[in-house]
């Protein structure tokens, strides 16, 4: 499946009967669901609980989303609500603590806004990266590795002259910048 299919189209296909479209939705937004869980300091089984609830709720709601294009927002707020549920379930036994907030605070809203923006940007960047020719992906992966490879190492592994690494890197980044996946984000 192409990486730059608009999310509304994926939702429509998944609401029909298209496991591939569903997998693409999960692959695209699972990092956001995960990230929100970790920002609420959930770990282990609690994250799994939130994850499975979020996806099962989405399965239930696929055909009922009022604005399929706003799926990232729906997923983010649903994930947040599920995090609160898990936190409440954990705390109900511990009567010593203060009652948890029922309503998200303004910083919770800010967190969700950030996560949505980051998720859209990250998904677009990953899609754009996936569209690059293999030699660009290899080169950029080496540049981005931690710890970073030196130009001498890159030259030895990819068998390209050291002097051409800089220009190639610049060309690959330019291709990334011009990719239709990134421009789709801009079009919003």
């Amino acid at each position, binding site marked *: 499946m192409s990486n730059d299919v608009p999310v509304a189209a994926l939702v429509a296909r998944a609401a029909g009967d298209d496991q591939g479209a569903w997998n693409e939705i999960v692959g695209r937004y699972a990092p956001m669901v995960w990230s929100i869980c970790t920002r609420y300091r959930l770990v282990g089984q609690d994250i799994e609980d939130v994850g499975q609830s979020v996806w099962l709720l989405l399965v239930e709601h696929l055909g009922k989303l009022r604005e399929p294009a706003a799926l990232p927002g729906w997923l983010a707020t649903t994930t947040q609500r599920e995090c609160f549920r898990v936190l409440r379930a954990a705390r109900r036994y511990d009567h010593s603590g203060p009652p948890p907030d029922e309503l998200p605070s303004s910083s919770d809203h800010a967190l969700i806004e950030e996560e949505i923006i980051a998720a859209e940007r990250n998904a677009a960047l990953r899609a754009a990266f996936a569209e690059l020719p293999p030699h660009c992906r290899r080169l*950029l992966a080496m540049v*981005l590795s931690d710890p970073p490879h030196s130009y001498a190492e890159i030259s030895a592994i990819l068998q390209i002259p050291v002097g051409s690494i800089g220009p190639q890197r610049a060309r690959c980044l330019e291709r990334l910048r011009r990719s239709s996946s990134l421009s789709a984000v801009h079009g919003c």
Partner: protein
Amino acid sequence: MLRLRARVPSAPEVSQVRDGWNDEQLLRELREALRARQAVPPEFVETGKNAYAWHNIDAELAQLTYDSGHDGERCAAMRSETASVRMLTFASAHFSIELEVTEGSVLGQIMPPGEGTIEAQTQAGGTTVTPIDEIGCFSIEPIPSSPFRLHCRAAGRIDVVTGWITL
């Protein structure tokens, strides 16, 4: 307080992606995008993909709303007499399932009560079907050793499935 749990780092605007970023910024953002995906365990994504199996199945999800096993160590002293019993509650909009985990079995009751069957489905693929009696009670023996969920079918109402349970 929940709000104290949230870290709020700054995030650049989406509109900067193409036009406003030099190569170093673009690389930094790309690194972050790839890292965000690598941080996610493959099983987490797999669970999400598997959720599609419930598409077009007429069942309601009952979610965990109470678990006495949470914060177990901290609370162990408070419940020393009943240390071997773990209580869980799953609830959907119209329905709840109470579970009590004893040494060798899972005792449960559905609310509102009614006859039906309860199926324990393990992640490994095994299933055990147990009857629910007229006051809504059931007993699952032995306790499933791998994560499982319950699929409840009762006359005259929509099916209910719980989230995965690990005991």
